[in-house]
């Protein structure tokens, strides 16, 4: 509908939990994120973080509801909703019932939805957990608490300029425009020697991947385990 252009974006992004009536005429530049977290506090925060970066948000409290929203619940039916396209799924790892990892597997296991990038959030810095998620096809892994810089980085890495296709090797597209404290990520093969400082200045060397999302990956092959970003504020624990 034409009013999309007239109303202020912030007003339009007002209600996150319900389904938007504008679904039939999405602003093609607006990223729609499905956020999954059982904590209401965290849902509020992530919702706000996403809205402030001009994303459309749908926040749900469980993996089950996320699948229902996608129309993937149980019978693998195709989308029951009015084609509200989801561009990114961001989910907490630790949730009762279905964990973020299990949700990730379900999404990557679906032919309809496995192209949707999935980002995992966790308050725990556990390398095995991170590796497992990446192997299962997670786009990125964010350590909580989630900050504005994390969301900005995600958005610009995945959707900066045009929509990024997974095979896109154009690292210059991921170049950050602003200072979003992204740690310098060490070499690609280095997964036990991760030394990142919590808030370094922004890096603008296009040759260095700054996060997993800047690695080319195809849906069917697992993303190689890699030095995660913003990790290891505390030492990691196995298991």
């Amino acid at each position: 509908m034409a009013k999309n252009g007239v109303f202020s974006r912030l007003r339009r992004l007002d209600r996150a939990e319900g389904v938007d009536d504008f679904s039939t005429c999405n602003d093609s530049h607006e990223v729609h994120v499905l956020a999954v977290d059982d904590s209401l506090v965290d849902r509020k925060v992530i919702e706000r973080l996403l809205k402030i970066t001009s994303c459309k948000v749908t926040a749900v409290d469980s993996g089950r509801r996320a699948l229902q929203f996608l129309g993937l619940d149980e019978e693998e039916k195709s989308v029951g909703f009015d084609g509200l396209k989801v561009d990114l799924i961001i989910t907490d790892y630790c949730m009762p019932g279905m964990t973020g990892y299990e949700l990730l597997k379900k999404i990557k296991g679906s032919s309809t939805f496995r192209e949707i990038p999935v980002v995992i959030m966790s308050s725990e810095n556990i390398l095995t957990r991170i590796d497992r998620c990446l192997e299962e096809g997670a786009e990125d892994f964010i350590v909580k608490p989630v900050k504005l810089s994390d969301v900005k980085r995600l958005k610009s890495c995945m959707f900066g300029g045009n929509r990024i296709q997974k095979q896109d090797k154009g690292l210059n597209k991921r170049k950050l425009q602003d200072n979003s404290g992204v740690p310098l990520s060490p070499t690609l093969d280095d997964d036990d020697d991760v030394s990142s400082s919590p808030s370094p200045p922004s890096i603008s060397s296009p040759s260095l991947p700054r996060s997993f999302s800047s690695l080319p990956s195809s849906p069917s092959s697992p993303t190689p385990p890699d030095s995660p970003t913003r990790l290891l504020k505390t030492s990691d624990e196995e298991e």
Partner: protein
Amino acid sequence: MLGLSVDRLRADMNRLLALLFHQGVLDEQFLQLQQLQDESSPNFVSEVVNIYFHESEKLLRNLRGLLVDKEFSDYKKMGIHLNQFMGSSSSIGAQRVRNVCVAFRAASEQNNRAGCLRALELLEYEYCYLKNKLHELFQIEQQRILAAGVRYPQQQQPNNP
């Protein structure tokens, strides 16, 4: 006079915030929340914090309920409550509360009931302190908004007392 009180209130707020940061009660994540507050979401911080209070008090009740039972043994359940408490505390920048949760969780992992009880006492204390201080902060903020608002009608309606 009103102009003065707006500035004084703002100074009071900043002083209180500085104190809380200095004490480690709050950390940078709280600042992050403040950055997310603007005209389109003018009460964001207090909304999130109020949700946090509501959830925290439930968790504290659950924790106490588990521990008062002399035959308590469900440390796993306690761990789940603690993880939730830790997570939400970290999300709003409640650093000290979060740190006590970490210690509490360690005691819980060792099945140390006495240690857990001590940690719970400390947790309740820290939580109360945080809640009081944040309420104080919000009160000053409200007063500041009121004080700032009162000026304008007087400018527009000079006959208003």
